[in-house]
């Protein structure tokens, strides 16, 4: 009743193949976008910006990137934190070396640098698979963090190894640095995520995405039908690293403002991204967003509930929160191994039949 396709006729293949084939779903999407772009910026304050929305958007981008590699192309990666660090440090070096470069270009160029580095670390994937590849990417994680600690050139020889983002503006409005207004940083991140998610969606349902999925499902069969593993795997690494690098650059310049490689881009970040993708749903664009929302918003929501509303001691609240989130992850994986995206798919199926299920 609420959600149905009756009367929604398609007369072209193009209309039939669009991302949201059902009209109400299309309306829902555009309404959500309208709220995100036109309403939220007027109401956002710095708490919502710094603790909720900006981290959510950036982590969605990371999850999107990892989902391309792991969910669509089947290459398990534990190097996400390291690739984010590449993006962040590339961003820092570009910002400080070329102060006049526009920030949007800096962020995209950081993504490009990360894509190169990611492709390099993707080379072993041509010979090794599965767990062994996971270990190889784990090496990338540790190697990259080590390199940003070891060579002071990367942090401009500062005494503490911290990198700090200088202020940069777009059309006269600061988007990095402490004086950036909340709506500006939010809109910048939202625009990046919107455009890149759009690109990802269209990449994954076209020729390139199908090649990735062919490799994921069975690489030998894919090779026999003419999918070249070298180019396909490396393109997945490149695109995925581009996303993760862009996210790393935003993470450092817009969200944190200052970062230190061991702490901001450690192995925990790689695991966090992997959990997001698994919980959200492997091989799903929506899943990347749902997974990121689950793991970014849940701790903040629980903290506010336990400490803010119920007034529990902070240590008890934190420990319970850790247990609850762990428990919920296990629960979701048992109830729905294909992730939150699959839950949404099932909900839609049910809604289409409601109120007359058969």
């Amino acid at each position, binding site marked *: 009743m609420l959600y149905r396709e009756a009367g929604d006729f398609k007369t072209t293949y193009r209309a039939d193949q669009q991302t949201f084939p059902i009209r109400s779903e299309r309306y829902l999407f555009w309404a959500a976008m309208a709220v995100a772009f036109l309403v939220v910026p007027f109401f956002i304050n710095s708490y919502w910006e710094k603790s909720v929305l900006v981290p959510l958007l950036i982590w969605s981008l990371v999850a999107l990137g990892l989902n391309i590699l792991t969910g669509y192309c089947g290459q398990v990666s534990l190097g996400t934190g390291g690739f984010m660090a590449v993006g962040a440090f590339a961003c820092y070096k570009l910002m400080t070396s070329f102060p006049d470069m526009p920030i949007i270009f800096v962020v995209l160029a950081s993504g490009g640098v990360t894509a190169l580095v990611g492709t390099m670390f993707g080379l072993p994937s041509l010979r090794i698979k599965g767990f062994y590849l996971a270990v190889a990417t784990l090496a990338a994680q540790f190697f990259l963090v080590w390199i940003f*600690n070891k060579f002071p050139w990367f942090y401009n020889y500062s*005494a503490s*190894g911290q990198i700090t983002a200088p202020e940069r503006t777009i059309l006269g409005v600061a988007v990095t640095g402490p004086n950036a207004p909340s709506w500006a940083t939010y809109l910048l991140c939202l625009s990046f995520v919107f455009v890149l998610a759009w690109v990802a969606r269209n990449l994954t349902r076209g020729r390139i995405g199908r090649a990735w999925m062919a490799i994921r499902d069975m690489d030998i069969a894919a090779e026999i039908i003419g999918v070249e593993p070298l180019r396909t795997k490396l393109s997945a690494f490149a695109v995925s690293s581009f996303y993760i690098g862009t996210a790393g650059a935003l993470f450092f310049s817009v969200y944190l403002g200052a970062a230190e490689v061991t702490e901001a881009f450690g192995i925990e970040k790689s695991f966090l991204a992997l959990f997001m993708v698994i919980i959200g749903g492997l091989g799903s664009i929506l899943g990347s967003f749902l997974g990121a929302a689950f793991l970014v918003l849940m701790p*903040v929501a629980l*903290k506010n509930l336990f400490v803010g509303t119920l007034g529990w*001691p*902070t240590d008890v609240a*934190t420990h319970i929160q850790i247990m609850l989130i762990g428990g919920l992850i296990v629960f979701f994986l048992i109830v729905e191994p294909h992730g939150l995206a699959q839950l949404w798919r099932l909900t839609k199926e049910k809604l289409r039949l409601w109120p007359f299920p058969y």
Partner: protein
Amino acid sequence: MKLKTLALAAVLAVGSGPALADLLFPSFSYRTGPYAPNGIPFADGYADYFTLLNERDGGINGVRAKVVECETAYNTEKGVECYESLKGDNPLVIQPLSTGITYQLIPKATADGIPVHSMGYGRTSSANGKVFEWVFNYPATYWDGASIAINHIMELEGGNLSGKSIALIYHNSAYGKEPIRTLEELGKKHGYKFTAIPVDHPGQEQKSQWLQIRRDRPDYVLMWGWGVMNSVAVQEAANIRFPMDHFIGIWWSGSENDVLPAATGANGYKALALANPGKEYPIYADLKKYVYDAGKAAGDGTHAGEVLYNRGMYAALLAAEAAKKAMEIHNTKDLTPAMMRDGMEALQITSALMTELGLPDFGPEFTVTCANHGGSGLGKVQQWDAEAKTWKVITDWIAADREVVDPLIAEDADAYAKEAGITPRDCN
């Protein structure tokens, strides 16, 4: 019945009238994670001191102090979340208790006009008040600490360090890297050979580092460690039979939690002290009467008298004194963060004041000024007695080598001013 009590409470709350707003002192604590052994005693001490002021004196000049804890787990992102959630509530001073979070908050707090006190940690060059208007790190900085440790070693070696070798084992983070530059400069001046050995977060695995120390046999080892890294390092040093009295930690690597796990192996380990350890002070009688016996102690109440408990208390004391100063300057009891900043900048700690507060000879005398936000830069050396399970202070106040430290601070502050586009203010 319940409704009645609720209504009564509401009436009482309204009835108490337009009382002054509480003075908010946020406590960025970490009671979970690998840094909890050090975070818990500090947070307890910080909270207990304000509880004492509220219970005994009815607050600071009659205005009650409110401590709001926010768990950071020593993690910068959580620290930022805590800051954002608290900054709208008029917090008087932010004490991040983490060098990483301090670095993060320096630009934000400066923009928002909220003072930051990183007591003996944080960015050393924030001692330069001309550039860092809103950031304070009195009574001493990391670079003072490095210099104090070297001065102590000089004393042991009869004033000559040429040809000696000194190693630094450090937490591979902004915190641990802070002293390296100073130690290198001092090495040039005194002619010792310096090596820096990093330990990655969280520091539970240090076998290779101590193997290196065992192979190189440096004459002295300094340590910039925090959390579990401290106790592991002390244990490893004991395992390779490194002479413990040649192993000196910074003031963040010298609490009971760091040495107790190594039992007798830790005997003789030294650490710097910002203030004295122990509970032989008149204030503890008051704490017992008004806080512990009243069941109002923070946490599980087992940390009283520990080094970090005392330090938390000291941090609270300095904040409370600054608040008093601010009330005096602005002649009001309704403080804002900006007024608090003025109070901190005019803070003057004398031994008479410390005696009056129940902590005679506890910390150094120092004066904060517009140009100097770093205090006097004095420290003591304490040594662990594993038999008695106590820290013993073995020196008097040792001064840092200002000739080396001050130019370094000026240089780094200038670099920051340039980077952040700050024009140093005029302090005359």
